[in-house]
C-alpha cells in the first residue's frame, strides 16, 4: 500500500505525463469524407426545403400569408347572409316554439 508521499509523487508524474505529447493525426481520407458529406447535403431536397423555409423572411412571410387567408375567410363568411340550412338549424334549436313544445310534451 502506497503511502501519501508516494501517491503525491505519482500524481505529479501523472500530471506531467502529457509533456512532449505529439499531435494525433487525422485520417488521411478525411477530405474525401468531407466532400461526400457536402455532396450529400447538396442533394438532400428536404435539407434544401427546410433550409429555405427556415429563413426568417420566408417563415414570417408564410405566417403572414396564412393569417391574411384566415382573416379573408372570416370576413367573407361573416358578411354572407345565412343560407337555408343555417336558417333551419337556427329554427330547430333556437326558436321559442321548440322549447315550449318540449316543455308541454306528454309521454306517449
Amino acid at each position, binding site marked *: 500500500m502506497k503511502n501519501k508521499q508516494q501517491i503525491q509523487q505519482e500524481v505529479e508524474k501523472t*500530471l506531467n*505525463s502529457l509533456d*512532449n505529447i505529439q499531435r494525433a*493525426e487525422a*485520417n488521411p481520407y478525411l*477530405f474525401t469524407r468531407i466532400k461526400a458529406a457536402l455532396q450529400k447535403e447538396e442533394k438532400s431536397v428536404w435539407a434544401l426545403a427546410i433550409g429555405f423555409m427556415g429563413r426568417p423572411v420566408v417563415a414570417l412571410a408564410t405566417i403572414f400569408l396564412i393569417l391574411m387567408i384566415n382573416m379573408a375567410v372570416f370576413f367573407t363568411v361573416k358578411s354572407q347572409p345565412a343560407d337555408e340550412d343555417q336558417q333551419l338549424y337556427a329554427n330547430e334549436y333556437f326558436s321559442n316554439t321548440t322549447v315550449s313544445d318540449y316543455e308541454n310534451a306528454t309521454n306517449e
Partner: protein
Amino acid sequence: MDELLLIEKLKQGDEAAFRQIVESWQNMVYNTAIGILQNAEDAEDVAQEVFVQVFESVRSFKAEAKFSTWLYRITVSKALDHLRKKKRKKRFAYIQSIFGPNNETVIDKPDFNHPGVTLDNKERATMLFSAIARLPENQKIAFTLHKLEGLSYQEISDIMKTSVSSVESLMHRAKNNLKRLLTGDYERN
C-alpha cells in the same frame, strides 16, 4: 499559398483552396477534438463536421480574429455538442435500463489511449485523461488546449472569448481538481 488568399478563394467555393485548408489544419482539429472527446471515431466525425461548417460559413468569417482562432472555436463548440449529446443518450439509456425488461447495465467506455503519448507515459496518461473527462467543461477545454495543443493562456482566452486572468483561474482550478481526482484514483488502486 497565403492564408488570406486561400480564405478568399474558399469564399468563392474553390475546391483546391478548401483541400489545402483541410490538409493544413486537419491534425489540429482532430487532435483538439480527440482530446475533448477521448474517442477516435467521435473525433473523426467532429473533424468532418467542423470542416463542413467552415466551408458553409466561411463567408461570415471576418479577419478580425485569426483563422486558427475561429477554427479552434468551431472545433471546441462541435466537440462539446457531441459530448453533451452522448451524455444525454447515456442518461436515457440508463433510465431505460432501470425500467426496461432487460435491465442491461450501461457499458462504461474503455480507457482512452492518446496516440501521441510516449510509451513510458502511456499508463499515467490514461489515468490523467480519465480524470480530465471528469472536469467541468471550461476547465477541460482550457487544460486540453494548453496541454495537447500547447496554446498560451492568451491564445486560449481568444478562443474562449474570456480574459487571460479567467484562463489562469480555470487552469489553477483544473490542476487542483485533477490532483484531487488522481489522488483518489491512486488511493483506490
